[in-house]
């Protein structure tokens, strides 16, 4: 479980705080979505929840962040990184840049945990298989497409087997099938007990995998609640968040005076 109580955060040298008064509880096995306009504070919250801010990013924090009931401040980095993993928005931030094959890249994290070789190999193949990129194992990670790199970065993260996960727009560059696959992988990890926080612009994905949703605006929580309720909230557009496809379609049909009963019938067949 991850818990934030009254958390505020200010980057070093920044004129104002990037986050204010954040209360958040992620229970084990729960996927919570994070939405909001650009620069609303999503990435900053990901850094704070993962323990990277202020630890490596600098800046000042207020309030309390606890992981499984413990204050993470005093934890050594290797313990933190096995307890909570963070997937950055841009895969080039995540990839080590020092490996020549995808397999070595995925194995890089577990190798640094000084795990037995057999364990490193097993974890790396398992992560590649889970994301169905085992065919890329021998390829040069620097020579992959943006979307393939995003999957490799995600595999490297999964190979660390962190107890909890923070993902900052993990599917931004993925094709629709890849997006669905990452969504399924997230649900599987949650079913195994991980707490997962996922920031995304793709509200269709959030609608399908999140039980609860937080919408940030100017560093504060503007909306929070069960995801179906939050995603149907009329405030969503004003907050710079795209309505999910189904919500948008139903509203447009209604506004145009179309046969909404027939439309509702088609959705009901899901």
């Amino acid at each position: 479980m991850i818990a934030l109580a009254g958390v505020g955060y200010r980057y070093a040298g920044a004129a104002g705080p990037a986050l204010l008064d954040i209360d958040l509880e992620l229970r084990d096995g729960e996927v919570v979505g994070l939405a909001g306009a650009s620069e609303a504070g999503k990435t900053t919250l990901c850094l704070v929840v993962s323990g990277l801010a202020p630890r490596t990013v600098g800046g000042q924090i207020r309030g309390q962040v606890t992981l499984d009931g413990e204050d993470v401040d005093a934890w050594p980095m290797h313990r933190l990184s096995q307890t909570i993993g963070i997937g950055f928005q841009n895969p080039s931030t995540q990839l080590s840049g020092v490996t020549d094959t995808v397999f070595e890249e995925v194995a890089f994290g577990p190798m640094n945990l000084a795990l037995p070789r057999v364990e490193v190999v097993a974890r790396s193949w398992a992560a590649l298989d889970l994301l169905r990129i085992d065919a890329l194992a021998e390829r040069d990670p620097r020579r992959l497409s943006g979307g393939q790199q995003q999957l490799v970065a995600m595999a490297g993260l999964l190979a660390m087997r962190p107890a909890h996960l923070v993902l900052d727009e993990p599917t931004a560059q993925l094709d629709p099938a890849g997006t669905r696959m990452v969504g399924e992988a997230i649900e599987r990890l949650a079913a195994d007990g991980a707490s997962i926080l996922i920031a995304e612009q793709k509200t269709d994905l959030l609608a399908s995998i999140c039980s609860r949703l937080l919408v940030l605006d100017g560093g504060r929580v503007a909306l929070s609640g069960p995801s179906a309720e939050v995603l149907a909230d009329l405030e969503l557009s004003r907050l710079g968040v795209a309505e999910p496809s189904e919500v948008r379609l139903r509203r447009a049909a209604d506004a145009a005076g179309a046969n909404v009963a027939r439309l509702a019938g088609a959705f009901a067949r899901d």
Partner: protein
Amino acid sequence: MSHDWPGPSPVTELRTEGLVHRYADGGVRALDGVDLHVAAGERVAIVGQNGSGKTTLVRHLNGLLRPTEGRVTVDGTDAAGLTIAQLASRVGLVFQDPDRQIFAGSVRSEVEFGPRNLGRAGAELRNAVSAALDATGLAGEEATNPYDLGQSRRKLLALASVLAMRTPVLVLDEPTTGQDARGLERVRTVIESAASEGRTVIAISHDMRFVAESFERVIVMRAGAIILDGSASHVFAADAWDALASTHLEPPLAAAIGQRLDLGSTPTDASLIRALGP
């Protein structure tokens, strides 16, 4: 600028013939014989699974990559005989990752760089820069360091810096990734206004709703080849879904609902709503 270029013309026609590209590292044929003709003023979306060759294809259009086999022509001239500078004045390419493109210390100098290199100066330069900043919502940020902008506004900045070059062809590599609702609306508007000026717009995207709504032609790629090419209502029609699935794509929601209700091909919300009737 070289003087043998026939001078700026408002239209540019692009063609690839038997285009093959193999990256130096290990024999993967990223493009495997692509024949493509894009007429002046078309709005073309390129879709397909991660690694299917979309970015490799568009990087040939402005000379960033050169063909292993086959050729690219610009208004009938073989691009092999043109320098990158000559191509850059015709075809503006916005990278997927803005951090591969941005290098200047301020938003203004970043956006000025391209048009300056094309020889623009004075009022012409100022107008091009301010129009590009207005279109991308970055007016007022001229003095800001690009790295003080968030990822999505850095992406809009990369777009602005290419818009300011006023090239007859605009190529956008995943312009909507990571954009919030407002950013997406800006990208749509930029595409519409470029098209209304008769410019050609080619964009790579994984957002099928955006593709269906903003592009008149959709090219579907798989394993370095084009497998479908036609209007949104053609490529998102039910009989093409197996082909789409083979390259990790799914039709937009409106198309799926239209098929479920037996309404024919309805790739956009608007077309579905029309077909639904009152």
